[in-house]
């Protein structure tokens, strides 16, 4: 991350590196900049843990793929996975899962309905971050074993996001009951220290060696029920400096890197030996405003801000124009999104007149915070500063360290801040976390937005299963929230993976899952 400008300047004068032959054809070298804090699938806290667990563990259902221009892409529709079949009855309040036969855990024991019941009950008992949504849908007693290969789940209500929750590794991963009980068991509300660093599931890869600060590995599981993976090993190499990651990629030392800063991404796109794959993640770079603080407690002020903002210019400045401007308070890749309820278009006169109506004819002064070291957010904040100045809003841009930043936005200390969080493709979860007054603060509603009508509609959404009704509700919700504008969405976040041309078969999902089974180097 250090001195990106230097790289650009130097790279400009650079000769193209010669084409490389595929090195280590059965091992994928993946450049990453952080390490997993936990690989306990039901207590994953960050991405590195999820990358591993997506391949060590499996879920009852999984997102489908579709072919786009000859290339597979992940979708947000579900298909059976460890469950070869599932049926909904009782008005969508009872689900019966029929497990695939002959699925074995990596220790050779067979997967049974007991393990499924145990795993779901464990998520509820641990009651960590991801469990909340599942807890709203099901009680531990509602998960019943019918026979060794059949599980029945009675829901508390017609929870429409239930299946999607099961598709998420951190709520739906199936663990072996025997293995967990042998290694610490389940203590309600408590992390399991053994499973934090050890994992054993039904997936195509097993946990391999880990060297702190250097690498962590996955090894192929030759007995995987779906056939042997194409690669023998995945090596995640910890390379903290992104410019260095890029150099290593250029030299063929790494096969894949992701999340390069936009300047290096642009360089990569010109590189003939590399391909750039885009994942439409579910998230937006957002300017949050604290709705309980003056002057942002007045919707007119928030709207004025949106009229003063030029989203394309922000995308140009922060992402070299790669990111798509937001057209709703929901990210474009989230199911239920519509871009047709967005009234805003840059209009400085309108912004000024709204400010005048709100009692700030000559603007006001405020502060935008971002976390230090995040170049994209810095550029966003500085560009916002210039744009808002045009309507008399004088903004001070301040960077703070990550711990202070998280504390500040979760406890409502900042008047404004820029952040982008990635979410699962679950509409109800997104709505509840971001806009329900009950989630104010750490729960995800960082703008401390409160609109009883919106709370009511979100509750209604969580009780509606018919797709047409849900879409209509989602549209109404967006219309209302877009008007209230508790936060200013700026542009949709996409994740970019830069890889060698020889890396084949890697499908990217909006949900952010990484499945390595069909990845190969050719």
């Amino acid at each position, binding site marked *: 991350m*250090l*001195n990106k400008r*230097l*790289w650009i300047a*130097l790279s400009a004068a*650079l000769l193209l590196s010669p084409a490389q032959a595929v090195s*280590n054809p059965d091992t994928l*070298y993946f450049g990453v900049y*952080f*390490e997993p*804090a*936990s690989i306990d699938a039901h207590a994953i*806290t*960050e991405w590195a843990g999820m990358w591993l667990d997506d391949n060590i563990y499996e879920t009852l259902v999984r997102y489908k793929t579709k072919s786009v221009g000859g290339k597979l892409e992940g979708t947000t529709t579900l298909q059976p996975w460890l469950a070869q079949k599932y049926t909904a009855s009782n008005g969508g309040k009872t689900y019966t899962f029929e497990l695939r036969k002959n699925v074995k855990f990596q220790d050779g024991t067979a997967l049974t309905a007991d393990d499924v019941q145990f795993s779901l009950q464990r998520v509820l008992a641990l*009651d*960590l*971050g991801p*469990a*909340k949504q599942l807890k709203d849908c099901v009680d531990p007693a509602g998960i019943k074993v019918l026979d060794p290969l059949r599980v029945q789940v009675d829901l508390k209500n017609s929870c429409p996001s239930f299946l999607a929750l099961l598709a998420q590794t951190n709520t739906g991963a199936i663990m072996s009951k025997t293995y967990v009980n042998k290694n610490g068991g389940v203590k309600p*509300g*408590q*992390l399991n*220290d053994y499973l*934090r*660093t050890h994992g054993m599931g039904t997936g195509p890869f097993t946990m391999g060696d880990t*060297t*702190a*600060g*250097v690498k962590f590995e996955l090894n192929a599981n030759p007995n995987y029920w779906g056939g042997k993976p194409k690669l023998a090993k995945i*090596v995640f*190499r*910890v*390379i*903290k*400096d992104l*410019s*260095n990651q890029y*150099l*290593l990629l*250029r*030299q063929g*030392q790494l096969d894949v890197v992701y999340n390069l800063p936009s300047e290096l991404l642009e360089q990569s796109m010109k590189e003939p030996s590399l391909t750039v794959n885009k994942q439409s993640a579910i998230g937006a770079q957002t300017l949050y405003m604290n709705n309980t603080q003056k002057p942002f407690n007045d919707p007119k002020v928030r709207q004025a801000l949106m009229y003063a903002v030029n989203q394309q210019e922000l995308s140009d400045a922060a992402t070299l124009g790669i990111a798509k401007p937001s057209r709703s308070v929901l990210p474009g890749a989230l199911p239920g999104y519509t871009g047709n309820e967005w009234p805003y278009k840059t209009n400085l006169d309108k912004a000024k007149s709204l400010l005048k109506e709100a009692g700030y004819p000559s603007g006001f002064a405020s502060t935008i915070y971002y976390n230090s070291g995040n170049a994209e957010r810095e550029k966003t904040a500085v560009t916002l500063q210039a744009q808002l100045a045009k309507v008399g809003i004088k903004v001070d841009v301040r960077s703070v*360290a*990550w*711990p*202070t*930043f*998280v*504390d*500040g*936005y*979760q406890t409502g*200390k900042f008047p404004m801040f820029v952040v982008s*969080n990635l979410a699962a493709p679950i509409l109800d979860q997104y709505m509840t*976390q*971001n806009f329900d007054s009950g*989630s104010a603060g*750490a*729960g*995800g509603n960082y703008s401390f937005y409160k609109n009883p009508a919106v709370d009511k509609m979100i509750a209604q959404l969580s009780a509606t299963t018919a797709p047409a009704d849900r879409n209509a509700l989602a549209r109404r919700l967006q219309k209302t929230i877009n008007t209230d504008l508790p936060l200013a969405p700026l542009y949709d976040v996409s994740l970019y993976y830069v890889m060698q041309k020889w890396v084949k078969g890697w499908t990217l999902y909006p949900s952010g899952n990484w499945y390595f089974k069909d990845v190969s180097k050719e």
Partner: protein
Amino acid sequence: MLTYLLRRLLLVPLIVLAISLVTFILVHLVPGDPASLYFGGQAVSEEALQNVRRQWGLDLPLPVQYLYYLGGVMRGNLGVATHTGQSVLSDIAARLPATVELTLIGMLLAVLIGVPLAVVAATRRNGWIDHTVRTLSLITLGVPTFWAGIVIIYLFNFVWRLLPPAVGRLPIDANPPTDITGLYLLDSLLTGNFSTFGATAFQLIAPALTVALGVIAVIIRMLRSSMVEQINQDYVRTARAKGLTSRQVMFKHALRNAIIPTITVVGIQLGYLLSGNALVETVFSWPGIGLYFIDSIQSLDYAAVLGVSMIAALIFALVNLGVDLLYAAIDPRIQYG
């Protein structure tokens, strides 16, 4: 001498204790909640946060937390690092050798390059060598280490392909030698694994040179000026008059008298570098204590920050003691009692 040594050694635990208290207070002054950082700053319910706080003892009053911590330290337990899930002691043990190896080799390079250059510059005062050396030392002093590191990687690896890529202590597909001391150079020699020795040494050149650059500049500036001072002393003239060769005069007489201030500065640098050089470690993906410290701060990992601070304080105190003892060895006029 022995009483002096004992007195100094008895002070060490007190220093470390004081550092732990100051660090404890400082890290708790930083606004932030380790529990919510554990969840990556993502949306999370209050119950989940409470669960984690309770499990880590963060719900206890601060003085109680500190006493618990000290109690653990007395039993040789530095606590569990919340951001890695491992014990802080094993985390540090896994990373310290990387830092030690890099620092020692870097220092060695610095002394081997810096001392002769300083001596030559001093003896050819105001000549072209002197001017060149002084200008270079000014430049290396002014250039930030991480920037120097990036330029070194770019030129020596990427453009000229003379040095290996900056992937840490070993090439990307190599395995570490059997673990004896954690110092790869030493371990590979001890196990007769010469290919790993070669690979390790090759990987070390660029980062060690980066570490050395800053120190070389310091050595040159300090040593050159004190050498110049010594060369004009009467005893040097006497030595020359006795008919000693120029080399004998410089290295046996002048250098020995001139080097004490340099040792002090180099000692401080050594202590500082041994406690981790986060910038160089970042640029070269060097899995040392400096990177670990930065990660710990980023995740407000109290136990890890405290652990590294205490180990760093211990190293610093011991290195300083070593430097003080070295004075007596070099300069017979200095005696401790």
